């Protein structure tokens, strides 16, 4: 750094740059927010979906699974599990856990009621219909 580039100039670039790009980020956020209804499948958010999300969160499913690629990498992606397995399989699967297969990764049993299971499936259905720009690459997630 040459002598003509002073600390004050560096500081001004920092403040100016930060403010500029933060405002740009806010503008993009605003644009995204107004465009989201087209891609985020919000018209399918029913009370059942909301209840399902609540169950999803309070059982910490994300601590083992990914959902749309975010979460933990220990167990299968569930953003598209509705399409991969269908509602009946999902319910039967959750009820029959843990497999108890020796040495195999285990999923706990959450003692969910039929209604809770239905809500969870509704949530996974809603999630599978979000426009994710064709991610994941194939059905295996």
């Amino acid at each position, binding site marked *: *750094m040459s002598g003509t580039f*002073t*600390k004050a100039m*560096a*500081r001004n*670039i*920092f403040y100016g*740059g*930060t403010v500029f*790009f*933060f405002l*740009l*980020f806010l503008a*993009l*956020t605003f644009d*995204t*927010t107004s465009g*989201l209804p087209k*891609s*985020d499948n*919000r018209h399918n*958010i029913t009370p059942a*979906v909301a209840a399902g999300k609540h169950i999803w*969160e*309070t*059982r*910490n*499913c*994300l*601590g*083992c699974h990914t*959902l*749309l*690629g*975010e*979460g*933990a*990498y*220990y*167990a*299968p*992606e569930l953003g598209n599990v509705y399409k991969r397995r269908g509602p009946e399989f999902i319910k039967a699967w959750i009820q029959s856990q*843990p497999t*108890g297969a*020796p*040495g*195999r*990764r*285990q999923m*706990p049993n959450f003692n969910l009621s039929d209604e809770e299971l239905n809500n969870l499936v509704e949530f996974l259905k*809603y999630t599978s219909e*979000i*426009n*994710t*720009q064709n*991610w*994941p*690459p*194939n059905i*295996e997630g």
Partner: protein
Amino acid sequence: MKYKSQAVAMPYFIAAIGLFVGQIIFGLILGLQYVVGDFLFPEIPFNVARMVHTNLLIVWLLFGFMGAAYYLVPEESETELFSSKLALAMFWIFLVAGALTIVGYLAVDYATLAQYTGNDILATMGREFLEQPLLTKIGIVVVALVFLFNISMTVLKGRKTAINIVLLLGLWGLAVFFLFSFYNPTNLVMDKFYWWWVVHLWVEGVWELIMAALLAFVLIKVTGVDREVIEKWLYVIIALALVTGIIGTGHHYYWIGTPEYWQWWGSIFSALEPIPFFAMTVFAFNMVNRRRREHPNQAAVLWALGTGVMAFLGAGVWGFLHTLAPVNFYTHGSQITAAHGHMAFYGAYVMVVITIISYAMPILRGRACNSRKAQVLEMWSFWLMTIAMVFITLFLTAAGILQVWLQRVSDTPLSFMAVQEQVSLFYWLRETTGVVFFIGLVLYLASFFVKGDEQAAAVPAGTATVPRG
């Protein structure tokens, strides 16, 4: 130690190191559960161990940052801390709240925990890294605000340096963006969108300010290079960090239901994010090469240089590896992500906290530096932990490449679980290397108890710097 009140940093550092040990023990449990799936099941399911691992990481880094601030701010401001009593009170509150939360994770079923801690009033739990009960989250905010009040008042009544100001900005940013953890709409896309305002805008935004400020402080102390030079670098680095990192958030908005244009914004800006990390490396080496004194604490110098290199590798190189949208399409949410997450967190934030601890702890214990013997042991722990982390990253990357290939690229894709079995060799290697990391950590702990020859340590604090040559 120039100011008495700096002493309050000590309990923070000790707590940080203690929780670090807990974090790694749970890392080893997780690593074993990857290959022996029913290990500790159902007592400690994987998701519980993972919460403990990641939350301990965050909490001990926060302890480290706060301790660092309590040490650094009085010295930079040239005045005693506004209130040491408040700092000490917050220490105990944070420690007890943190401990209770971890015990809660381990002892209480998560859904029950949610029920008893007000999650039905305001649902914030069950999202990665933000699993803490509402009460804990509120506790974090309270502690953070009192802490910020304390150090801001100190800066206000004392000297304002660039390092002080940047550190404060970073810490205030940390608290402000944490507030988004309270926003959890039912709309999953919105939920995810703002979740990243905590996670990404922390590690690739405001935390970089904290990191750069801490590094700058230690470099001034150990090299004696002119403050003007170092502070100019500091501003350049953080300008680069925020100019690239804010819009760089877009690299998380490719596949979560957000508009396609983020693939452009995210790819372009996040591809530039390695630049500030590269600048930090150059900065650290440059300053050490231009040093005007030989500081007797060579371990601290090693940690400072290591931070630069490892942050660049973990965040810069491994971040770049998967940040372009066409690549991320295949690697998103795979072991590649885990590889990057580990090296970036270790290289940037773990190492910078250890750097400041390495520099400050001897002084807090009444000497300029530790004995030669203790330093040698500390340097051994540096190399063991750092090399282990490099190999953990390499093994996870290998696992990740295979995973992507078998599960996502192949014409005849295998299922997730089938692929996990195929790559289990690499998980075993990761676990073994994890044990090496743990040994490094034990040596690190031991280095605090080594007495050894008191030669280097005999020099009283303040006069400990000998002219070079």
